[in-house]
């Protein structure tokens, strides 16, 4: 490793972009001709399903249920936002769908912040604090990435979250936070230790010599320098939690704490043909991930890659 105090990634698209403006120097092994048609055909094919749902979500209920969304191009019918207003009021398990949106937000923000903070503290300790068995512990933590979360569901529920001694104040949403934090830990520590451990030791040592405490080094030096790694990890973890169904379903208790994914599965089961609700509901769940995707694509790719070893 040279100066690349970076998350373990292969070249990122943005990194590559800087090197390739030499278009004229065509070392082109690419076939001209058919190639670009294949690309555009696949790109179109990939867009059609989402586009169909998006268009449908703005069509009146009768139109959705009687004609295909593609007829909208030849004979543009009515456009309405009724589906969205209806679905937000629509009751799932006795609760309006809008409630599940707030639940998701309430799960996903701490579900990303807590594990990353804990992992950053641990990564600092494993990199810059001196204690016996430090390296062995680091290796052990990384090895835990091979444990799939499915292995922990039943025992965690039985002996922790559903145990009689488990504090009531932590049941429901906090349980989902804790569960997500547990499952995120090995990967988050692994990635952040790679980054924090690679920070220049002169900086840390100099601060130590000046009498700075670990906490102030961590807050004033390490955290600001680690922003790229933390941002990528945070986006990955946030979207992972936002899109999660399994963990919330197992640990969240009743419908009152469940995210939108739960509400949507319930709607598919009970109102499978009410497409005016399903289309709008599905889009509401996608809005936040799509905004993150479109505005932070660069970090998104890094996060996705970095998260590729999540257990």
């Amino acid at each position: 490793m040279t100066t690349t105090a970076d998350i373990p990634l292969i070249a990122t698209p943005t990194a590559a972009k800087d090197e390739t403006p030499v278009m004229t120097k065509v070392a082109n092994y690419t076939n001209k001709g058919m190639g670009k048609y294949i690309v555009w055909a696949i790109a179109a094919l990939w867009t059609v399903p989402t586009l169909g749902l998006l268009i449908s979500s703005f069509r009146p209920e009768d139109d959705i249920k009687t004609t295909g969304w593609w007829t909208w191009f030849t004979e543009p019918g009515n456009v309405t936002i009724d589906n969205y207003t209806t679905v937000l009021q629509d009751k799932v398990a006795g609760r309006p769908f809008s409630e599940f949106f707030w639940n998701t937000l309430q799960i996903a923000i701490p579900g990303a912040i807590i594990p990353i903070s804990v992992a950053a503290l641990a990564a600092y300790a494993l990199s810059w604090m001196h204690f016996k068995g430090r390296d062995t512990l680091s290796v052990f933590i990384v090895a835990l990435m091979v444990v799939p979360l499915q292995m922990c569901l039943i025992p965690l529920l039985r002996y922790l979250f559903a145990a009689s001694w488990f504090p009531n104040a932590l049941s429901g949403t906090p349980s989902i936070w804790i569960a997500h934090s547990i499952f995120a830990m090995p990967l988050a520590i692994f990635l952040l230790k790679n980054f924090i451990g690679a920070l220049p030791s002169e900086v840390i040592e100099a601060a130590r010599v000046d009498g700075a405490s670990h906490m102030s080094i961590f807050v004033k030096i390490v955290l600001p320098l680690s922003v790229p790694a933390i941002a990528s990890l945070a986006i990955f973890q946030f979207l992972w939690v936002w899109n999660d169904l399994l963990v919330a379903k197992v640990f969240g208790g009743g419908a009152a704490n469940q995210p939108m994914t739960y509400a949507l599965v319930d709607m598919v089961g009970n109102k499978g043909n009410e497409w005016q609700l399903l289309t709008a509901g599905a889009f509401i769940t996608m809005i936040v991930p799509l905004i993150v995707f479109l505005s932070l694509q660069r970090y998104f790719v890094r996060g996705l890659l970095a998260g590729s070893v999540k257990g």
Partner: protein
Amino acid sequence: MGDIFSSLGLVVVGIAAFAAVIGGLYWLASQLPEPWRERARTVVFLGPGLLLLLGLVLPALINFRLAFYDRNGDWYGFGNYRDIFTSSNNIEVLMNTLWWGILVTGASTVIGVVIARFADRMRGEPIAKAAIFLPTAISMVGAGIIWNFVYSPREYGLLNSMIGLLPGEQDIQFFLQDSKLLGIDNQWIPGLNSLLIMVVIIWIQAGFATVVISAALKGVPDDLVEAAKIDGATDRQAFFRVVLPYIKGTIITVVTTIVIAVLKIFDIIQTMGKGGSFGTSTMANEMYEQAFPQDNEGLGAAWAILLFLAVAPIIYVNARNQRAMRGAR
């Protein structure tokens, strides 16, 4: 609960509580005399992480034990594993998972290579790649709804409408219900329903493969390709014999990553396969169905162990490969 103020209120309280606990403990640790002060501070930094990791280690160990008990909590030895490998239903689940691993990983990676190769330096490359990459951001549940709509037997089902355009009289297909591949009913080959759900995950994973492979392609030195062509290689030979081997590490990352994701496929089976009905179940789905709705914790635990045995070596390969690539850079 259920509106923005109470949601964000809980979020703020949760995070503030966490920060206060850490800060308070650190302050307490700082009051201790040396040498205890330094040790206590280390504990404050490392403690929360280790506590959470304990929530991973202990359950994983307990899970091994649970798998030896039956649904009534009586000792069952290796009975759960025997049941998995002898019941034809479960063999279908295992075969489904295997087919998922092969077909989805293969198709996604090949599509990724094709797009990455042909889109490279093409006009409009970022737009085409973004279109293919977009599904990656969507939840499996959302994706399930998008594709349920495509597969619907009603007038608005895109796939049935397209089948209707074929010459001759076409029957409406009830996809994802009881349809069989070419009418064949055999536990060793994937059913049509499974294939239809696999398409959705290919749709999601191909974008990941494209972006990662495309980035790697742009890192291939031009000289290398030029040298091969001066030596008389055709475009095709240069690509398959020089460029692909050069990005081998990236291809391994992509393949292992997709295999891991696919082996653990769950949400989409819940949304599109109605919890694994109609021959669509996979290992992770079966694990959930047995442990929770069916209330057979032992069998669920055994499925989880099998999942661990399947996933662990692949994660190991993936992590080692990433480390090797980092070293090479």
